[in-house]
């Protein structure tokens, strides 16, 4: 799995940080989403997928590698 961010679409709601804090952060500078790891461990997949669904700005894209459960 690979996580891709579009910071322009981030409205700093913090849903991603609450859902998958291991993967997402928020910049102290401007409040925009940051990526702590672009290739999360499989154990984090459900949280990352949920974070993408919850993101109100559509700033998070999850690319699932073929064959990933």
């Amino acid at each position, binding site marked *: 799995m690979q996580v891709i961010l579009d910071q322009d679409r981030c*409205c*700093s*709601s*913090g849903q991603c940080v*609450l859902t998958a804090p291991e993967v997402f952060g928020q910049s*102290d500078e*401007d409040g925009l989403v940051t990526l702590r790891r672009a290739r999360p461990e499989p154990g984090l997949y459900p949280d990352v997928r949920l974070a993408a*669904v*919850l993101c109100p700005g559509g700033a998070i894209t999850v690319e699932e590698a073929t064959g990933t459960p």
Partner: protein
Amino acid sequence: MVTTTPTAPALALPAAHGSCPFDPPPAYDQAARQGAVTPAELPDGAFCWLVTGHQEVRTVLSDPRFSADARHPGFPFLTPGRRALAVTNPSFIRMDDPEHARLRRMVTKDFLVHRVDAMRPGIQRIVDETIDRMTAAGTGADLVTDFALPVPSLVICLLLGVPYEDHELFQAQSRTLLDNRATPAEVEAAQRGLTGYLTELAARKRSHPADDMLSRLAAREDVSPAEIAATGLLLLVAGHETTANMTALSTVALLRRPEQAARLRADPELLRGAVEELLRYLTIVQSGLPRVAVEDVELGGTLVRAGQGVLAMLSTANRDERLFGAPGEGAADELEVSRDARRHLAFGFGVHQCLGQPLARAELQIALETLLRRLPGLRITVPEDELVFRGHSVVYGVDSLPVAW
């Protein structure tokens, strides 16, 4: 098939509440059962679409073909007072990007998850002191005026840099701003009052800055005094009214279902999830979020034409059985504190989604946990049918909540 002509008489807005104070008005519920998009008529006679399904509400709130800018013709207003409010000095909730993003991003920093986490001990102190004061004053109290309202008011005052001594002024004017019964003249007067107050306060902060949001806004060169006042007003009103009503209404909901409250007392780990479930179940912005289509859009099998207003109904979206009715979790119409309710839309969706949600969550978690723990005998002292629910306000809630412990 795409339908454009309504086949049934349009639903009259706003609809009245039914017998359960926590359920959306039955007419909205019924509309939701018939389809995700229903023709409706605003009190001024204007046509608008009532959007009730979870997925369709998400689309309306996140698709730029629906505008939040109230200056567009066709923008739906539930009352003349709301029209007056949106047009005179709009805050960024009534703007589209990039104007909206420019102003919103000036204040996002203060609501970041890790910033709010750092505020938790301070919020806990405020909650404890408020309960101390309430219990020292007697054996009973009004949970709204003595707890639910002061806690978020104190927190937002601290964050914004508004003196809490002025709380009676801003609380009264906020209530008028949100009251559907208020006339345009009353709404305008309340808005003028608050705007004047915040403009003056910001001017003082410019000469005597402190470590607060208004001081930081006032120090900027790229924001006008009118924009500072409108932003401050939005944060002040949204920062206390919503959380206050969520706290009071959550307490009523939990006391009505003692087994749910008992589970929370026994297992505080459930609290974070329970707050999400309460947000879903209560959805206090019950009258819907207004938008206007700026292009033709097909929505849930219905063609919404450019220039038509839509109301995105968070309350029915949050009761959507397709999402919140999994077996073993209880029906969507039930409060179930262990349900996974994280996909609720109580904070809205899209770029306008509530900016203060990390703070709102922290306040609700701390307030409810502390209330349940410190007042194990908490009970409502009037018969339930004497409670006055705020069906007339943009923010639903209860006017007063007599309790003893």
